[in-house]
């Protein structure tokens, strides 16, 4: 496709991530480092996953259940990675708090912790978008564009960019929900995050059916919007509770 179209697709997939980066993450260097390390984590989990599945590829196109197993294992592994990331983050938080005490500065505030989880989620989302969408985009500059048989109404790259956008939003904001849930030990939120991830991933199975991408992609974006809204509610609630507690203490 032409450079202009390619740039457009890349911006569809990564535009919100870029503005989040420039507006929030780039202001605090620590968040940039968090983003890079969470991207690395996601990449490592993806490599492990592909190592496990390498023997079974290529999957024959008729067997959709093989894809289902693939997706379920992938989501399970990534949720496991999220837990590992959480543990590392806890250690880092302790170190930072100890350091802050030593130099008699205030400890990490609630917004700081939420910012760190935002940067972590953004790292996951950016890694996803880069590896699944962007890496296919750039070799394809040139004449003509691509359509996949099963999705003949939309250019392939457009569908891929929209799905990447949906997943970026889901990854970013579900990380905030997840960290919040682990922190407050709320079981229901802790369950919600993997369920949302799994649901979104399973929804992409719809794309295997002919013409399925016309249904699957909008549904995915709806899921992303739902995740965003849920995260908004969680964050608002937490912040107002915290504020009330502060006011009550003082």
């Amino acid at each position: 496709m032409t450079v202009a179209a390619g740039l457009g697709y890349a911006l569809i997939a990564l535009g919100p991530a870029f503005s989040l980066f420039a507006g929030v993450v780039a202001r605090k260097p620590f968040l940039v480092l968090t983003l890079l390390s969470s991207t690395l984590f996601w990449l490592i989990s993806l490599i492990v996953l592909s190592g496990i599945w390498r023997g079974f590829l290529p999957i024959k196109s008729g067997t959709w259940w093989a894809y289902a197993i693939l997706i379920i294992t992938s989501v399970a592994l990534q949720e496991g990675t999220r837990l590992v990331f959480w543990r590392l983050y806890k250690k880092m938080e302790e170190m930072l708090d100890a350091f802050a005490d030593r130099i008699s500065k205030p400890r990490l505030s609630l917004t700081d912790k939420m910012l760190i989880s935002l940067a972590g989620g953004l790292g996951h989302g950016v890694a996803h978008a880069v590896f699944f969408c962007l890496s296919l985009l750039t070799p394809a500059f040139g004449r003509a564009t691509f359509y996949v048989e099963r999705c003949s109404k939309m250019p392939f790259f457009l569908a891929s960019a929209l799905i990447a956008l949906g997943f970026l939003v889901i990854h970013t904001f579900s990380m905030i929900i997840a960290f919040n849930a682990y922190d407050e030990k709320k079981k229901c939120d802790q369950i919600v995050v993997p369920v949302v991830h799994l649901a979104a991933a399973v929804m992409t199975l719809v794309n295997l059916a002919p013409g399925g991408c016309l249904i699957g992609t909008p549904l995915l974006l709806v899921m992303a919007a739902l995740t965003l809204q849920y995260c908004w509610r969680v964050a608002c609630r937490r912040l107002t509770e915290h504020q009330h507690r502060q006011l009550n203490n003082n």
Partner: protein
Amino acid sequence: MADAAATVSGDPRGRPTVLDSLGEDITRIVYPVSACMLLVVLLVSLLSSPSAPSPLAVSIAAATGGGGGSGGGDDIPTALVTALTFVVAVTAATFLLALLFYLRCTPCLRAYLGFSALSVLLVLGGQVALLLLSRLRLPLDAVSFALLLPNAAGALALAALAPASVPIALHQAALVAIAVLTAFWFTLLPEWTTWALLVAMAIYDLAAVLLPGGPLRVLLQLAIERNEEIPALVYEARPVDPRHGRNWRLWREGRQPGADLDVSSTTVEVIGEVFGRNLDSNSGNSSSPQVHGVATSAGDANNSRPRATLAAALSSADSTIAQAEEVPVLREHRVAVAEMSVPLIQPRPERSGEEEEDEDGIGLSSSGAIKLGLGDFIFYSVLVGRAAMYDYMTVYACYLAIIAGLGITLLLLAFFRTALPALPVSITLGVVFYVLTRTLLEEFVVQCSTNLLMF
């Protein structure tokens, strides 16, 4: 109380927390490294034909009717021989530099440095410019080109060599330009040779810095003894300054001048402290010497500090010769770009006259910034550039691996507090990730995403 509320609502009027400027020194070295890698990847994608294009690229090229690039035939034995020759040449050159430094021939070293910087910019820069002009079909006549190139090369060489006389941004840009050009030239080597070279340089770096007889170690010890600075091409990140730190933010009001100095402690020191090494020597207020307020004394300290971080320069690579088969040519010409891939930084800055805290500092420069040798820039970019010749997925993976390696090296630095080589960890991780991506990841991701299955 108002503070707490303000902190909770997270607006910038609240008291700044630890998070605000922590890690700034690391990002200040990550950004230039990333910029260098990005430029090399852009140059490679514009100018080179891939030696072994990935299946995806081939299928796309076939579909659009374009022809694919042909793979050059080079084999492993030649590659190993070439790499070995290169390492031997670099070792010899570093010993020569150490000898010159020992004999106090500083003018020799400076002249050598200037000559090599200028020749890289002139010859390699000219070659790259010509390639770009022909590829992008830019209209520029020969006379203008002949006028512009030497001037630009001279200006950039001057900026690279005399940091005190040019704005720091120009100095850093000139260093990055030199690194980009050299790295691009290295990527023109055949594939196996490049990989063998990278691995060999990583091993050499490890040996030269850590083994007792290694040339770089010798050079560093000489420099420390004499309390002199080795003339070298070194990238120094801008000093972290709490007051003028982030250029895109307005100066905050109400910030007491003294109170925020401590937050500006470098991340490396933080890590060192956290690992408990600083407990005895730290006296609570770990304000580091990198405050711009003491700029004048820092300026003096700059001249006298034992900046023994890097071995010297680029050599005059006669760079128009790019054929790896001509080993005798290599012996003469291909030298010592890699001499600069030297320990990251040197701990223990000399206590200058100013009364600062007994830092037990990580030996950053007296302004607290991290210094990284230009050779490290070059070899990181060579790895990423070579990955770009295969496919972009390997580029992303190798980029992340290299940045992770850099981070690990900094952690090790905080832990061990000695001069450390910056190449081995990053190159190892880069190569491992390249291999893993190329064999495992690509197939998997292409299979999933061409079916529009994502997770």
